[in-house]
């Protein structure tokens, strides 16, 4: 199987990841406007789903790289910028864990989500610029042109999977909030 078939995993995963982060930043802005905690739950869930798919994107890239070029990692600009963005969004998830009080956590993470999202295009531009100075074997080498249909299917499938994961995460997040509230009210009575 030609290694380039990894594209069907690689590209859609990246695309869905960016969609997830876009949903997250929109939810963060909505939270800052309305202070409604459900937007915070949405932002967190969307970021988690986005990061899962970004990780899938990077893993696919690694496998592809090994199969096609016999090295585990090429500093291909697409995969390198994916790695940096993954680190940036991982910092968001760490921030979520570090702030205990829910309202403060929501406010801080909304701010940080905006910071992370603004960084994404800058990172991509920077890494592409850097790579263009010293050309390297690209991951994209030997990808046939006649693949739009299967690519579209794969993307649709991943999108559906992401939506499902998001719904599950949202449900969990909302249940957790109710639980926390019940516990807190119980403690004071």
């Amino acid at each position, binding site marked *: 199987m030609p290694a380039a078939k990894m594209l069907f995993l690689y590209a859609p995963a990246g695309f869905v990841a960016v969609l997830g982060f876009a949903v997250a930043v929109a939810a963060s802005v909505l939270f800052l406007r309305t202070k409604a905690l459900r937007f915070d739950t949405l932002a967190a869930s969307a970021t988690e789903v986005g990061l899962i798919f970004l990780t899938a994107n990077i893993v696919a890239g690694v496998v592809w790289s090994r199969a096609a070029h016999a090295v585990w990692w090429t500093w291909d600009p697409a995969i390198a910028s994916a790695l940096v963005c993954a680190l940036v969004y991982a910092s968001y998830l760490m921030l979520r864990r570090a702030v205990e009080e829910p*309202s403060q956590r929501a406010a*801080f993470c909304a*701010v940080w989500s905006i910071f992370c999202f603004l*960084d994404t295009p800058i990172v991509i531009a*920077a890494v592409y610029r850097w790579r263009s100075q010293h050309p390297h074997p690209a991951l994209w080498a030997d990808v046939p042109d006649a693949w739009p249909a299967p690519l579209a299917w794969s993307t649709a499938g991943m999108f559906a999977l992401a939506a499902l994961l998001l719904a599950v995460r949202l449900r969990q997040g909302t249940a957790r909030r109710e639980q926390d509230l019940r516990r807190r009210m119980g403690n004071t009575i």
Partner: protein
Amino acid sequence: MDYLRQFWVVSIKDLRAEFRTKEAINASLAFALVILVLFSFAFDAADLEEAAMNEISGGLLWIAFAFAGTLVLNRSFVRELPNDCLDGLIAAPISRSALFLGKAFANFALVLAVEMISLPVFGIFYHVRWASQFPELLLVLVLGTWGVTVIGTITSALTVNIKLREVMLPMLTYPILVPALMSAMQLTTRLMAGEAIGSDTGMWLKMLIGFDVIYTSVSLILIEVVLIG
């Protein structure tokens, strides 16, 4: 005019407090020097050719600056923790963005001071002539340090009251700074190798300026949310 005055009062307060104890600036300077020394052992400066040395100079310097800078940036809002001093600043009739800018500028001055002292040391250890295009190099130092400072000051505000503050601040600051550090490294490497800033490196300069402008604006707008919620 009022805004400037507020900004200045906050900045001077931070600088005066820091120069009383000199804790952060001493630690930061020591850390920068240690990194430079350690790297000397890693890349034996005596054996490296000038070309190879120039290649790594930008990266090496900015790694040292970014890591040493964190020691200063961490202190920024942490110094307001004892005695609930942050309450005093928030209650005062000053604009929150002036408060942020004042602190950021104090940090900027301190980190830049550490960098200006580290540069000659770097030149001596690695036999690099850094002064050949000094005005341009200074511009890159100023822009790059401002980027580090803005992000570091807002992350200092975000992490001041949370668990694992010392760990969280670098974890938040470094990933997001990657494009700014990259630009600064590329520019510094070229300048030290004697190249002028042309159309090629001009792109990196624009990126650095763009980063600074975007994140300064966003920080000024959102600092109120961070301080008050």
